[in-house]
């Protein structure tokens, strides 16, 4: 049975949103998604899923604070402690069982509510082996970036190209919090942080909420003329220990993609996929992920980035939305945002960042530092 995405709702991403509570932010995204899908959440939705982590929210049990603002009070609802794409994958499975016809997936970030973000991320480190060392948690990304660049002989200039492309793409996205006219040399001259990563290599936090309405093939066709089909989903994790996982390659993304491609019957991803939205919360991650996804050969993503292959009018548009570097780091909402972007692209609703003639798009996310987990969704239109 096919599963389609029939509604998309997003708030704008902003570096802070003092005029919204987290509930009100979610309500806005939900209202937009239900208007887009033409569904009444109180009578036409069978299941709701939220993707959230307690410490990103500031609650002992965030699940409590979910239902009212997405129309889920007294309805089947759950929290997936994962990225939005993990939520989408679980909605996909719920529908495949036949028990659920229409499901709603929500993810959001109210990062501006957190006043000690580094402290929260640090709290995810292994309590025995890593926490007592007392370093900033992004050291993990610095070490991994070093391992990746070295093992693939990717020039540091490539990172500048990624940052420049995504910040500039962000200028074309009215939702983006960090669109800016950044030239490729600027990132390389920005303040050093976790070498080889500099200030502009690291996406800045943003607030925002995303809601997708997902439906069985029958319901999807009833609800709208142009559903975007979920052709495949995949999710996977490498070792949770920083020490025993792959550092140079994003193995979790490779495994997640294998699963998604298998379901989507995609054999040659580089040829069959028209555009990709991949996790770029640190600049090197975009390159590392493209290689893991089979969208660039190992060691070639950096050079292709320098050639402009991944620009909106390039051979494989990557992060036309602006990605996390351009839109902001929305934590667990990252993957759902990317899936929403792919939906807009495939529907031809992406405004001035529209990629021409795209029929198959890929969204990919990673669960940020210190995880080695991620998910992939392959979306398509037409038959």
């Amino acid at each position: 049975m096919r599963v389609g995405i029939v509604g998309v709702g997003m708030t704008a991403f902003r570096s802070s949103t003092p005029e919204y509570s987290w509930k009100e932010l979610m309500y806005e995204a939900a209202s937009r998604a239900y208007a887009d899908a033409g569904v009444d959440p109180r009578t036409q939705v069978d299941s709701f899923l939220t993707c959230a982590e307690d410490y990103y929210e500031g609650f002992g049990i965030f699940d409590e604070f979910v239902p009212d603002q997405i129309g889920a009070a007294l309805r089947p609802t759950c929290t997936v402690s994962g990225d939005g794409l993990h939520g989408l994958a679980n909605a996909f499975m719920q529908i495949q069982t036949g028990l659920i016809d229409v499901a709603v997936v929500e993810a959001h970030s109210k990062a501006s509510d957190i006043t000690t973000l580094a402290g929260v991320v640090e709290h995810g480190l292994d309590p025995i082996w890593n926490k007592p060392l007392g370093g900033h948690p992004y050291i993990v990304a610095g070490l991994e970036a070093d391992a990746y660049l070295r093992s693939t002989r990717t020039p540091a200039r490539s990172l500048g190209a990624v940052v420049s492309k995504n910040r500039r793409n962000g200028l074309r996205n009215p939702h983006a919090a960090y669109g800016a006219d950044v030239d490729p040399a600027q990132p390389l001259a920005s303040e050093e942080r976790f070498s080889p990563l500099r200030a502009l290599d690291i996406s800045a936090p943003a607030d925002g909420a995303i809601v997708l309405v997902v439906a069985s093939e029958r319901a999807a066709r009833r609800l709208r003329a142009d559903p975007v089909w979920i052709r495949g989903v995949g999710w996977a994790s490498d070792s949770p220990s920083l020490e025993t996982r792959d550092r140079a390659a994003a193995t979790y993304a490779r495994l997640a993609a294998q699963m998604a491609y298998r379901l989507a019957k995609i054999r040659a991803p580089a040829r069959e996929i028209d555009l990709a939205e991949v996790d770029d919360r640190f600049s090197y991650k975009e390159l590392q992920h493209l290689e893991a996804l089979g969208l660039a050969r190992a060691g070639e993503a950096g050079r292709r980035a320098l050639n402009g292959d991944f620009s909106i009018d390039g051979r494989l548009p990557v992060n036309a939305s602006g990605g996390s570097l351009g839109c902001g780091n929305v934590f667990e909402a990252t993957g759902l945002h990317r899936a929403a972007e792919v939906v807009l692209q495939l529907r031809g609703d992406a405004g001035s960042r529209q990629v021409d003639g795209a029929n198959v798009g890929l969204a990919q996310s990673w669960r940020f530092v210190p995880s080695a987990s991620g998910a992939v969704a392959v979306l398509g239109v037409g038959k």
Partner: protein
Amino acid sequence: MTARISKWPGKELHADDLYQAKVTQVRFRPDAKYAWSAGEAMSRFLEELQQGRLVARTCRRCKRVLFPPRMFCEECFRPTDGWTYIRDTGTIETFSVSYLDRDARRIAQPILVGVVSLDGASPMMGMMHYFAEMTPDQIRIGMRVKAVWRPPAERRGSVLDIAYFRPLREGEA
């Protein structure tokens, strides 16, 4: 299971093992601080508390007066319609007499705490708060109560701007 398994995993520790560090361990306190945006509904709610008033939102479709106030109705899933003041009197719907503080430490003077539904809001709608000017023997479900506000100068825009709820006196509306 019982039939097949003879040994059940798990290595029990005594309090001393942990607190006297007889087993190796790491001690840690996370840095997890927040400043939640109160947003539209709660900003107004707190502002009104500071003025000594309780404010609710109305939903025209389900005809409810929603307290605590919210900008959307969770039943109808639509924006709520307007602000309305409700009264600071109400009814105890449930309560507890607590001998525990928030860290589960015992306290000598029990806390009277419970849910009070407020007059003017829809039935059963109210808030959690303390009760006082009554003994643990006197408090009961169904008791009519009234808010005791802190003096205006001491109010900060918090539920604690109400010190507690006390029994409604005879003749009080």
